[in-house]
């Protein structure tokens, strides 16, 4: 059997995956991106490229993906539902595929109110669930969203989605995850975990329903630089839970950055060893991409597995 992507092969073969994140810049030069990509190359299996995160205009995920691919890392293109209607989405899906991308993460996208263009029109033609389903149908049934046949090469993506165990309603989050799996999601990246207890409760329910047997869940983790960063996330990001104990730990640390990195590594080791059903980690080192190699290495996840290109489609 041939795999859709390197990430697909690593996860399906039962290996613990490592993904990271690159945030494109607010200007038209990719020098910074290439620098980060080269730095992370041997420490990750694939890397997400955010899509105008927080509704702030940045280089598009696909354009950035081309450069990241050129640096030797497999990109995970992120596609939000906020900015494109289904016509533009499909055009971008076809485009991304022919440019060499093979992983796509489907998400709703932060409301434009948070970004630097709050007066823009809100698209949301389709939601993330419908995007997942349509992306799967493009690959498996060779049809466009409208049902019309794709006559030649269909886009074949390894499909990802997000899950947020820290948003409400809690019980329904597991249902919604299952719904995404039904729709075609093959891998899941969670929102950053700080409330480990809640994450464990979430995973318990996931295992009860056998969802971990049907989809690969990667635990989302973020190294914090300071107690202020922790506090900001606690108060200003909807859908995130940061326990006071974490804020305190960073506040009372002599070297907060070191403490933040240590905490992240502890969390990685914990989810890898103690939380059954977690198949990898997604390290979101926001504005701190340089720290990824150290985190991966000190977590005992280096070197990364090699994948023979002949195993891929």
């Amino acid at each position: 059997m041939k795999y859709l992507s390197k990430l697909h092969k690593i996860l399906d073969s039962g290996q613990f995956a490592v993904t990271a994140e690159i945030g494109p810049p607010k200007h038209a030069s990719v020098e910074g991106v290439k620098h980060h990509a080269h730095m992370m190359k041997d420490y990750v299996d694939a890397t997400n490229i955010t899509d105008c995160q927080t509704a702030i205009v940045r280089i598009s995920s696909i354009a950035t993906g081309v450069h990241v691919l050129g640096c030797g890392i497999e990109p995970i293109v992120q596609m939000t539902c906020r900015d494109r209607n289904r016509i533009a989405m499909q055009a971008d899906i076809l485009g991304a595929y022919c440019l060499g991308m093979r992983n796509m993460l489907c998400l709703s996208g932060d409301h434009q109110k948070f970004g630097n263009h709050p007066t823009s029109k809100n698209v949301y033609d389709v939601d993330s669930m419908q995007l997942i389903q349509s992306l799967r149908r493009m690959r498996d049934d060779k049809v466009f969203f409208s049902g019309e046949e794709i006559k030649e090469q269909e886009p074949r993506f390894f499909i990802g989605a997000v899950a947020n165990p820290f948003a409400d309603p809690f019980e329904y989050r597991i249902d919604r995850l299952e719904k995404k799996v039904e729709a075609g999601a093959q891998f899941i990246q969670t929102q950053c975990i700080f409330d480990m207890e809640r994450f464990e409760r979430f995973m318990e329910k996931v295992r009860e329903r056998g969802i971990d047997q049907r989809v690969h869940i990667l635990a989302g983790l973020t190294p914090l630089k300071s107690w202020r960063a922790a506090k900001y996330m606690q108060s200003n990001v909807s859908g995130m839970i940061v326990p006071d104990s974490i804020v305190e730990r960073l506040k009372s640390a002599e070297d907060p950055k070191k403490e933040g990195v240590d905490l992240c590594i502890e969390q990685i080791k914990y989810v890898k060893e103690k939380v059954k059903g977690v198949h990898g980690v997604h390290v979101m080192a926001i504005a701190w991409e340089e720290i990824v190699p150290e985190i991966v290495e000190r977590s005992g996840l280096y070197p990364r597995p090699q994948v023979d290109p002949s195993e891929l489609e």
Partner: protein
Amino acid sequence: MIIAQQKPLKDIAALISDCKKVLLVGCAGCVTVCLAGGEKETEIMASSLRMMREVEGKPLQTVTYTATRQCDPEYIPPMDEMVKDVDAIISLACGVGVQYMAERYTDKWLIPALDTKFIGGSTVHGEWVEKCGLCGECILHKTGGICPIIRCSKSILNGPCGGSQYGKCEISKDVDCAWQLIYDKMKALGKLDKLMEIQPPKDWSKSRDGGPRKAVREDVMIG
């Protein structure tokens, strides 16, 4: 009903700065109910504009009238005589009424005194909220009577998104997460299994996106 709110008085005054006589027309329909453009509001506005202009040394003559509704052509002709010698007409109706007035009085400048905001209803006296998304294909039976098109900030049909926390939408603590409400309602109805069905992409051509819409009842059109 249609909910509208008055534009700032200064803005309206600026628009009629060159006028000597204006007609202010209120509407006894929706805008009376939402206290934006009824008879009372029309008279208050006329009085305020008169005094403002007198203080500036540029007196303004006003005539006021409140139509039964400005969105039915039959209620406009009674104003025919009134508009003859005015320099502009200020309509306190919603956007619909302003257009009907403009259509009949082709040689008069129509000024909207209101910003038409949304369709909705009242919560407590003095407060109105948006309720319906005007999507053209109602699915309220699938969502426990809560409109996901307009009450969810992202019009998600398979919600909630990851920004829903403590029952509130990520855009503001004052906005309830529609999907939390839908979930609670469907749970109470014992119909949570319905939420596991994947709702397909919406046909937006039935909404504003398909172009200006029309509704017809053939059986009452006598020709």
